[in-house]
């Protein structure tokens, strides 16, 4: 009797310990939807392997993969010179997974009231606090709720580099500082006077993307304009490994960049690189 109990206990322990080979992924919440969906499919095809995906922002992803805490970092911006310098010894390998645009996003109430496009200068003035009412840019007479992002977020880097000319620029006009795309999207939906910065794929009925006015040409944030690069704030989405990926990590990276992975990219609302 006792022996049997012992045996059963041992076998339970044994099952618990036969660990699947796991790939740890972390970083940009913009890249997250693609990778987590791909991870689901990948796990179904390779039952002996596991992929664990976390968010945290591009800065966090790059830092953790540089320090070797994770296997793959997700980033929605290029590495800064400082990061290049810091992780020179580990040879970060950056691959482009998809193309995306950072779109100035507003509450649908503002969009419907007539604000359909802005110039980069106007957006800059809003973030500097020089414009604080929608009526100054042809909208309703309503104060603007300016939503900023945490400093290390990739979306903010890309957006601020174009709008204020410096990727780490202060935004004295900001009313809220939020983190992930999800948080930002919720805040814009909950307000009737908000502006924020969102990835193209996160726009929906309550969160409308504005077109950007470049010298009188109004450029819509459409697929075509992202693909051919005419929309001013386009960017690549990257997966980063330490050196050339090997083993399960390589298998997963190849899956992401392969036909199936790129189908998921398109299905998630981003533009495939193939």
């Amino acid at each position: 009797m006792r022996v049997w109990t012992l045996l059963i206990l041992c076998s339970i322990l044994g099952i618990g310990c036969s660990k699947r080979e796991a790939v740890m992924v972390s970083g940009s919440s913009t890249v997250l939807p693609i990778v987590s969906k791909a991870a689901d499919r990948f796990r179904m095809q390779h039952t002996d392997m596991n992929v664990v995906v976390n968010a945290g922002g591009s800065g966090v992803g790059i830092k953790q993969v540089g320090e070797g805490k994770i296997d793959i970092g997700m980033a929605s911006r290029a590495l800064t010179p400082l990061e290049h310098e810091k992780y020179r010894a580990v040879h970060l390998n950056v691959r482009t997974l998809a193309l995306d645009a950072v779109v100035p996003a507003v509450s649908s109430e503002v969009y419907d009231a007539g604000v359909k496009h802005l110039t980069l200068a106007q957006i800059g003035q809003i973030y500097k606090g020089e414009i604080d009412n929608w009526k100054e840019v042809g909208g309703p007479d309503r104060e603007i709720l300016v939503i900023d992002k945490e400093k290390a977020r990739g979306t903010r880097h890309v957006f601020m580099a174009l709008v204020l000319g410096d990727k780490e620029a202060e935004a004295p006009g900001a009313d809220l500082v939020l983190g992930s795309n999800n948080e930002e999207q919720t805040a814009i939906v909950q307000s009737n006077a908000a502006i924020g910065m969102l990835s193209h794929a996160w726009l929906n009925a309550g969160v409308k993307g504005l077109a950007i006015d470049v010298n009188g040409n109004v450029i819509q944030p459409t697929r075509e304009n992202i693909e051919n690069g005419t929309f001013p704030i386009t960017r690549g989405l990257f997966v980063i490994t330490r050196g050339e990926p090997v083993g399960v990590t390589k298998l997963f990276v190849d899956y992401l960049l392969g036909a199936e992975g790129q189908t998921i990219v398109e299905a998630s609302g981003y533009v495939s690189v193939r």
Partner: protein
Amino acid sequence: MFLSAKIGKGYVVTCAMISAMLIVVILCFLAANSWQAFSQVGLGLFGWTWNPPKGQFGMLPMIYGSLAVTVIALGIAFPLGIATAVFTSEMLSATVRVYAKSFLELLAGIPSIVYGLMGVAFLSVFVQDVFVLLSGRTILTGGILLSIMILPTVITLCDDAMHHIPMSYREAARGLGLYKYEVVKDVVLPAAKMDILGALLLALGRVLGETMAVMLVIGSLDKIPTPFWNVLAPGQTITSKLGREMAEAAFGSLHFEAMIAMALILLFFVLTLTVVSLTYFYNPEGRLYE
């Protein structure tokens, strides 16, 4: 028999030492990792602007935010909590009281992220509508949410405090002709004062240390509102700042050390408040009953 008693004693003492060591180790870790910030930034730590890329590490907005939410949360939770505890301890029958208490303790076990999400989905929208604000993510929202989170703890501890007062006290007071509310006001509450203070300190610790829920509803703007009593503006607490920025600061950088310095200051707040309240209120003979 003798041996087992010795082992038992040794075990208990070891456990106590481990617990005591933990706080010392944490203090040492925080001090060692924030030393650079104190020596290099110095008084700059108590400035108004936080901008790591430019080397500005002013943490006054965060300190202000932490104090503001504490005042709001305790200001709401204490009157409510003590009144509720009077009800459960003095007016409910013993059986109902047990059920009511278990139910309240259940509330204390809800993960803070759940409170945070409910705060974003309902409370902040409510605050936004009631006060006609641009955004409902304000210091007040954070304070209200925290008061809801500590309420179960406050109620159940205050209830215990009052329930422990012997029945003979109440009977004697009634015998002197006091009304029921006078019994509570003049006998039960004063006698339970020490334990109620203990409840206050525990709640205070939770308010100052709570991260996730506050982070989601407070707006995370590193600014002291103008005028400073305008709690209907977004703000930032020490913990929400740490929660948002800790992961992105490189270990050992000045940025990281400045964040640790903030954590150290938070710990000092709690310690100071505990020591001050104990010296002012602690009275070994204060507990009349045994």
